[in-house]
């Protein structure tokens, strides 16, 4: 079974040379730490920066240079700042190659819910609805089950949707799963996790074809 860093590490393998990548808040943010150093990747943040670098050294924080999680950041050579309309031109116009974001629920048809629990939690969608409606390539990073042990990979979402039929791949603490017309196709198991464990933790239809390899991280 993977921890958050393990999930991030596995997702980092999906990041290809020359990709512009938008990372959501939470586990997705950790992905930046694990991207191979021999490939060229640029991170975009929807509040208006391309070419994000690591966090600043103490004393070098700048209130005017933050990411979408409101964290102080730095920029790398070749970076640029821009306004919100242009930022979403990058996203909506499909210039960003890969979007990695968290979710509360994903359905077997690729629907995603991650912005609202009616009557309980209403933080808002931020840029997530633009991202999922636009991106060609969306990977969800999340735990396979919620705190109550209930599956987050469902037949259909119960929470208000963020987007419809948009998720392509899911990486959880248990598995790598592809969203296909037939349902959740199991691609890889997390180290030490059996197919049955994944089956039990998945409410939606799980497609298992042939031998399922263990992830290589």
């Amino acid at each position: 079974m993977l921890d958050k860093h393990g999930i991030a590490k596995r997702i980092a393998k999906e990041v290809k040379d020359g990709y512009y990548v938008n990372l959501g808040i939470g586990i997705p943010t950790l992905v930046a730490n694990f991207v191979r150093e021999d490939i060229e990747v640029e991170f975009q943040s929807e509040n208006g920066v391309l070419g994000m670098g690591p966090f600043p050294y103490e004393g070098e924080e700048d209130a005017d240079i933050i990411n979408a999680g409101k964290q102080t950041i730095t920029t790398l050579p070749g970076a640029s700042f821009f306004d919100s309309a242009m930022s979403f031109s990058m996203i909506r116009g499909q210039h960003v190659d890969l979007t990695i974001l968290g979710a509360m629920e994903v359905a077997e048809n690729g629907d995603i819910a991650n912005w609202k629990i009616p009557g309980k939690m209403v933080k808002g969608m931020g840029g997530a609805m633009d991202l999922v409606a636009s991106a060609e390539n969306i990977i969800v990073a999340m735990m396979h089950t919620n705190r109550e042990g209930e599956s987050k990979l469902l037949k259909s979402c119960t929470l208000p949707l963020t987007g419809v039929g948009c998720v392509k791949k899911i990486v959880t603490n248990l598995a790598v799963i592809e969203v296909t017309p037939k349902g959740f196709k199991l691609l890889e198991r997390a180290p030490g996790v059996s197919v049955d464990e994944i089956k039990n933790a998945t409410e939606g239809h799980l497609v298992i074809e042939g031998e399922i390899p263990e992830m290589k991280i």
Partner: protein
Amino acid sequence: MINKKVANVTEALQGVKDDMTFMFGGFGLSGIPENAIAQLVKLNVKGLTCISNNAGVDDFGLGLLLQQKQIKKMISSYVGENDEFERQMLSGELEVELIPQGTLAERARAAQAGFPAFYTPAGYGTEVAEGKETREFNGKMYVLEHAFKADFGFIKAWKGDAAGNLVFKGTARNFNPNMCGAANITVAEVEELVPVGELDPNQIHIPGIFVQRIFQGLHYEKRIEQRTVRQRS
């Protein structure tokens, strides 16, 4: 050169009244019009509709207006950092319209640019699209969204001049340029009001035509919401 300079925040906010609709630049606490917000607190105008990506934190930014219950309705994309906000919303005291962030930016830009409406994919198939026209283009579904209408737009820039020209810094730029000229009256406050002619005409982010009033802001706190640092190795 058409002079947009006013003496101070009091003069800049003349005409502000109860029940108006305002737009505020800023993302989180970065690039928010601190002087205009402080003045709105002082004026204690009520029944406001506020268009702003976020709602500040409990004791800063638009949170200050929420504390005084000046806001009737918020139009935002993300409001996760504010307990008082959540309390007022869940109790029904505060009306809230949550919209996708890119839609928020573009509805401002549409108002600035004279477009009444545009089609965007964001929110299709979700409750955001309920009651809105949807339409297919090239095999993909889109939602019709409309330009904002507001009485005042409150903008924070890094540098500006009396002609109303503005330059922003870093990610404090965010929604600020898109909201200039999107409201009936755009009020810009700047960290540094420079002499006309000092800004390179080639490097002005917002030309003065989109700004009705500009003033030298004072006492910027520029609070950091999430101070994240790394170790020196």
